[in-house]
């Protein structure tokens, strides 16, 4: 078992954060973030060539988190590996003590820094979830019996602000059907919209143990908030938050963003909107403990 799975099963409000591996071999900053966060959250996601930008691998960094006593959530995308490589990495993950896998399609290479690369997409995220389930049952995708099976807690993602939403909900249902144990959502900012989404999602997961964690990306500036609205599909920052970010001087914008994130965590928890949060502070992981403290969930996680 792992800490993240235990937290999910316990019914407590689950908190995870995110580690982005470095572009290069200098791991000092990343290790600092891992050591700072590993005991303050239930799980630590490790991104897999996030935004199709080549970086150090998610598998090895996840293994290092496990070695340091944290509970990694190994993000695996279908963009860079075919079904052989994915399964091989999943077996390797088990060997490294990784028990949580977040199954993603992966951003298209054209949005990243190696635009001429061939995207693989031999599996899609639904297949990857099914595949983890089969490895847990002791078989590989082709049906061959494994000498030693995996024990993965299987995660997936969903985009509550997808427009149109209906096709997204069908895919969500397919992921539940395929065997996902937990979901971390794309970043959400509009709590009313998210509540409406959760009603629809709960209708689909009714009768299952599936946990849904809201994705929260900390706003760091007004410009960043506007950029996300303009350029990132499936992310919607409402006008009220844009105004709030604009209401403070530039140097206080980050703190304002932290306040907003903390307020949302509090709201989601107190109203039992979802089962937890996944806090992303892209590159500014050192602010995560303070956000959790402001939200009143730090002590609970640490205990």
């Amino acid at each position, binding site marked *: 078992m792992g800490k993240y799975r235990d937290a999910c099963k316990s019914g407590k409000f689950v908190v995870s954060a995110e580690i982005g591996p470095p572009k290069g071999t200098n791991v000092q900053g990343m290790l600092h973030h891992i050591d700072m966060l590993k005991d303050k959250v239930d799980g630590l996601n490790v991104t897999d060539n996030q935004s199709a930008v080549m970086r150090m691998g998610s598998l090895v960094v996840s293994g290092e988190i496990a070695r340091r006593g944290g509970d990694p959530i190994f993000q695996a995308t279908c*963009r860079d590996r075919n*079904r052989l490589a994915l399964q091989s990495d999943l077996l390797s993950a088990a060997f490294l003590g990784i028990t949580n896998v977040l199954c993603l*399609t992966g*951003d*298209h290479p*054209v*949005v990243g820094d190696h635009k001429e690369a061939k*995207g693989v*997409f*031999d*599996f*899609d*995220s*639904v*297949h990857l979830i*099914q595949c983890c389930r089969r490895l847990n049952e002791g078989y590989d995708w082709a049906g061959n019996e494994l000498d030693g099976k995996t024990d993965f807690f299987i995660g997936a*993602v969903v*985009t509550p602000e*997808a*427009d*149109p939403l*209906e*096709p*997204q909900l*069908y*895919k969500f*249902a*397919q992921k539940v*059907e*395929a065997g996902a144990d937990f979901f971390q959502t*794309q970043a959400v900012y509009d709590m009313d919209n998210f509540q409406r989404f959760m009603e629809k999602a709960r209708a689909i997961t009714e009768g299952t143990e599936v946990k849904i964690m809201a994705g929260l990306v900390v706003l760091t500036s007004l410009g960043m908030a506007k950029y996300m609205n303009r350029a990132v*599909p*499936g992310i919607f920052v409402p006008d009220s938050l844009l105004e709030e970010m604009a209401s403070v001087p530039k140097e206080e914008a980050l703190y304002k963003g932290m306040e907003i994130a903390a307020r949302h965590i509090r709201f989601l928890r107190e109203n039992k909107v979802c089962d937890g949060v996944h806090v992303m502070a892209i590159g500014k992981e050192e602010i995560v403990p303070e956000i959790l403290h402001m939200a009143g969930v730090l002590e609970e996680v640490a205990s």
Partner: protein
Amino acid sequence: MIISKKKPFEEVLKSLEGKERVFVVGCGECATVTQTGGENEVAEMKALLEEAGKTVVGTIVPEAACHELDVKRLLRKNRDAAEQAEAFLVLSCGAGCQSVRAGTDKTVLPGVDTLFLGNIQRAMDFLEKCSLCGQCVLADYGAICPVTRCAKGLLNGPCGGTNHGKCEVDPEKDCAWVLIHEQLKKEGRLDERRQIHSPKNWNVVNRPGKLAEVREKVSGAVSGGEE
């Protein structure tokens, strides 16, 4: 229709470095429609090459450049010019280019880039709807192909890059999953959307694809072949 576009003339010229006598081959089928290798484009290329100081020893526009026997026959018919040529410049898809390869031992060079199998929307407006994957899945998706029309070829619904009905990869292009979803809705088949589709079997066509079926002649009903 195989969709191609002209290579920049500078690139063509560079590939012809050291070759003075050129034989230009077009195609009467796809490259004519795409205006990359029809009679007009072959004449245009001849003029450009001559302007650049090359000698164009001959030109042909086979009915379909992918028909190897036809291309060979035309080259035999133009034997004198073909023998003088130092290089063949082919204004046809990669298949046509390799038909010429099969008909000569000399240097063969492509004059166009082959893009995709395209549907003709209107004159000079082409859209890829089929990518020849070897095992047709259109029945499951309201005859809208996700293998081809989703930028990632996903088989079980949209990714997070779906954006107001368009694709994150290219805002000019529709998200195939919105099209598929709407189509299945029109057909009253939304219940099928929960069905999980297996990954593609990429072993159906091992590259290079090869099909040589033996056809039985049924009392003269089958025609064609050599005249």
